[in-house]
């Protein structure tokens, strides 16, 4: 399988477990890095004072919207603002289908919006489709050279 990594930004450990299980059950065995809130996600991507950001960007970011500290919307806004991550594929994976959320994320340049179904079988199907599409079918943007 494609060696591209997945960054899963999700604060609910149940959802983390179920998402990973759904992905695995369809043989999507790529590395999944989990960030439990917006701050962790930003630290992972852009680094902190002590630690530099990740050298190799993930193939796709699965981003929840309702997160503690820094919201998914703010994370997306930062990703789109930074030159390095401007073209990084970001898929919103969240509970709500509120119109305001949809408008907000698409306006900020989200690549896709998937609402997590309650039915776990459906959710597994969705995860499979997402993995197949973003990790296998989608041509990732060229990796920008570091300055």
């Amino acid at each position: 399988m494609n060696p591209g990594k997945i960054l899963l930004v999700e604060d609910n450990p149940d959802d983390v477990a179920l998402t990973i299980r759904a992905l695995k059950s369809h043989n999507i065995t790529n590395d999944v890095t989990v960030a439990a809130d917006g701050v962790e996600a930003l630290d992972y991507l852009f680094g902190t004072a002590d630690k530099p950001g990740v050298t190799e960007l993930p193939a796709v970011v699965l981003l929840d919207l309702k997160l503690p500290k820094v919201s998914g919307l703010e994370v997306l806004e930062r990703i789109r603002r930074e030159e390095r991550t401007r073209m990084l594929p970001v898929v919103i994976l969240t509970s709500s289908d509120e119109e305001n959320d949809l408008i907000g994320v698409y306006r900020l340049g989200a690549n896709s919006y998937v609402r997590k179904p309650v039915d776990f079988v459906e959710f597994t199907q969705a995860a499979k489709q997402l993995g197949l599409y973003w990790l296998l079918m989608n041509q990732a943007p060229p990796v920008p050279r570091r300055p």
Partner: protein
Amino acid sequence: MSLRDWPIRRKLTVMLLSISGLVLLLTSAAFVGYQYWSYRRTLRDMMTLRGRILAANSTASLAFANAADATEILSALKADPHMLAAALYDKDGRLFATYPANPPHDVLPAALEPDGYRFERGLLVGFQPVAEGEGQRLGTVYIASDLGVLSAALRLSAVTALAVMAVALLAAYLLSRTLQETIAQPILTLADTARAVSTHQDYAVRAPQGGADELGALTDAFNQMLSRIEEQNRELKGYATGLEQRVGERTHELEERNEALRRNAAELVVANQELDAFAYSVSHDLRAPLRSIDGFSQVLLEDAGAQLDEGGRDALRRVRAATQRMGTLIDDLLKLARITRVEMRAEVVDLSGMARDIVNEIQRGAPREVDVAIAPDLTARGDAPLLRVALENLLRNGWKYTAKQPHPRIEFSSVQANGERAFMVRDNGAGFDMKYANKLFGVFQRLHSAAEFEGTGVGLATVRRIITRHGGRIWAEAAVGQGATFYFTL
């Protein structure tokens, strides 16, 4: 200034003076006339007497034809300067003697005239027969006098009359000035009062009371009228004050109500914001645990299903079914909330076309043989997305409740109900008991069990909310097993 516009004092004075002047004039004229006539008679009587004396004295002179004697007798007339001339004629009419010796030519008559005394040629003349005994005529005496005495007497009486008239008119003028006061003064006072009332709108003033005559009655009536007006004015002012007070009270009430409305509106804005936040929270947070329950139940079934007996596996499946049902409930509730919050945009909507689209969509999702009749050209003004939600709910209901019907039929058309146009969705499905019609449009109210017909009980509540937001009404008619008809107006 015409006579009409004269002040009443002048009118009265002029009237009194005119009347007394006329009376005086007539009286004086009668007096002078009478004097004149009476003087003339006296004058003629005196001439007659003088003629007779002359005639008597001249008898001898004529009988003896003594001219000198006759001239002397005639010359006795010179004592009276008014006697202009006299003449004695014999029985044949020949001039015998004259006075004066050569009388002015125009004073003597051209010929003898009949006997008698008369005024002619501005003179008083007389012809007196001279006779001796009975019927023995000897001749004629002629005498002529001027009218100096008459004109002097006439002048005197005219002067007297004028003097009396002047004094009388003066007296009348002075008297009229006093008398007219009794009539003019009350009228003038009344006029002044009326002017004061009309100028200052002061109905409290009163005209001073006069006598018991017509003017007194007029003053009384005028004062009574003023009293009435004053009273009515006071009443009117009372009404006006009351009215102002009422208007003030009403205005105050309105302001209070406006304030309450403003507060309500502000509260509503806050409530809407809270509802938004609530819906957002429900949407995100309430579904997450459901996903965990369903997800891990499935994990359990997949990973440990073999270790469970059929009862255990069935329990887990029931847990999952209930969880998913709760998910659907939450989604429907959120949709209902969204119907309330979403902004409406009015446009003309082709309901017939919309109904056809919806039916095609339902048919694709759950293919069945249903006789669908949609009336053409049904249009309404409203928000297209919301009306679509409403129509879809009604048609899906029809579709759902005719599932057990051998010849299912759904109809969408319009009818006239109570003078307004109502749209109608009718099916020949399960129907319901009208006893429960009041529960039909309540949230989570269902008239059928989930085992009979599945559903969450939010659909018709959503429809009613949409119709209400459009300012319309919705109602239903049905009977168990006879189908249901939903009417709505927009």
